[in-house]
């Protein structure tokens, strides 16, 4: 009797992209720590939601051992670097670690993720703004310990080129008391009042006239204002700061658990994405 291929497949086989991530982590001097099963489950959830091709770069900031150099070497390896695992890849093989040290990182628990001091630390994704259209864009971050200190805006992820309308940032804005998403427009951008607890925050611009801000997969702000056609630049997206034409500024001291950059995701996809992130965080005790 012929054996079904389904029967022969190990039930707990790693998702191929999780296995790839694990190999890249080791190559970077890290270890997978306790993260691998949760990473694999995350990959399956994203596939099942049908949004894999919308996510061009994503880092779950996991692996390794909390509070160690190995933890840093592990968590700087992104899970996704392109809309597929086999097509074009974008940005650095790893995120360039701007002065993070082992004690800034915890793999698991309520303090899981990477924590900045808001002054001297940021990550450079080396993912150029010109890689992806600003009018078909999402930026997302799962965070805790939001930074609302001082008087300046605090950027979770973004880039900015003052000379042209080629900027996109997800930030806490002390001046307005809001979490905001900007993409290629100085006005008419979706926002919501500060999120005091942890959340998966995602800004989406899907056209010149549509931008949405999601928190935990639920729309919390929309804008239908018409924005101008954005320019492009080679400046990369920074995390924990804004890349202001090559220099990090408006840093945040938030703890970040993951980030993603990619194309616009609709409301159904946003909910599924948030659920996948929440499931990963739960599996890692990052609640």
């Amino acid at each position, binding site marked *: 009797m012929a054996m079904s291929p389904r029967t022969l497949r190990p039930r707990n086989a790693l998702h191929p992209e999780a296995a790839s991530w694990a190999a890249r982590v080791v190559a970077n001097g890290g270890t997978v720590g306790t993260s691998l099963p949760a990473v694999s489950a995350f990959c399956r959830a994203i596939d099942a939601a049908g949004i894999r091709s919308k996510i061009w770069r994503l880092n779950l900031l996991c692996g390794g051992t909390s509070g160690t150099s190995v933890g840093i070497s592990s968590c700087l390896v992104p899970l996704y670097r392109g809309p597929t695992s086999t097509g074009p890849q974008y940005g650095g093989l790893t995120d360039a670690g701007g002065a993070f040290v082992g004690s800034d990182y915890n793999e698991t628990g309520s303090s899981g993720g990477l924590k900045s001091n808001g002054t001297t630390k940021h990550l450079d994704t080396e993912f150029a703004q010109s890689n992806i259209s600003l009018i078909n864009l999402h930026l997302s971050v799962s965070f805790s310990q939001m930074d609302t200190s001082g008087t*300046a805006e605090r950027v979770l992820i973004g880039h*900015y080129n003052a000379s042209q309308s080629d900027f996109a940032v997800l930030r806490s804005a002390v001046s307005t008391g809001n979490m905001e998403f900007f993409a290629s427009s100085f006005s008419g951008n979706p926002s919501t009042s500060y999120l005091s607890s942890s959340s998966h925050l995602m800004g989406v611009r899907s056209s010149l006239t549509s931008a949405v801000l999601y928190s935990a997969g639920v729309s919390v702000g929309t804008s239908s204002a018409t924005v101008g056609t954005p320019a492009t630049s080679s400046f990369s997206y920074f995390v924990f700061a804004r890349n202001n034409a090559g220099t990090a500024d408006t840093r945040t001291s938030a703890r970040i658990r993951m980030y993603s950059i990619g194309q616009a995701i609709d409301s159904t996809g946003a909910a599924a994405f948030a659920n996948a992130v929440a499931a990963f965080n739960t599996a890692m005790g990052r609640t």
Partner: protein
Amino acid sequence: MKLSELTLPISYSDSCGIALVFTSQLAARLAELHGLYGTKNCVPVPRVMSDGRLMLCGDILTEVMPGGLLAAMWDAADKKVLGESVGVMPWAEAVAMLPPDRQPV
């Protein structure tokens, strides 16, 4: 206070309370050393203070010990010169000397 007066290793909590302060000339030399012996997993990017000196958080000293992200760079550095050339000041004082961020959009 100079770096040479610090006792290493230093704890993370103690190191977060200090800033390392140095000249742009030394920063250039340290960047060269990082290019030769550093890792992309830890790329210190100093900030310019209002008096023209540069600063970093002292917590990077927790990565210079064996096995640390900056250990190879530290091993290759002239620690006598470094110890005399790098100043140490309270973190809050150094942060107070940083220019405000440019107002974003």
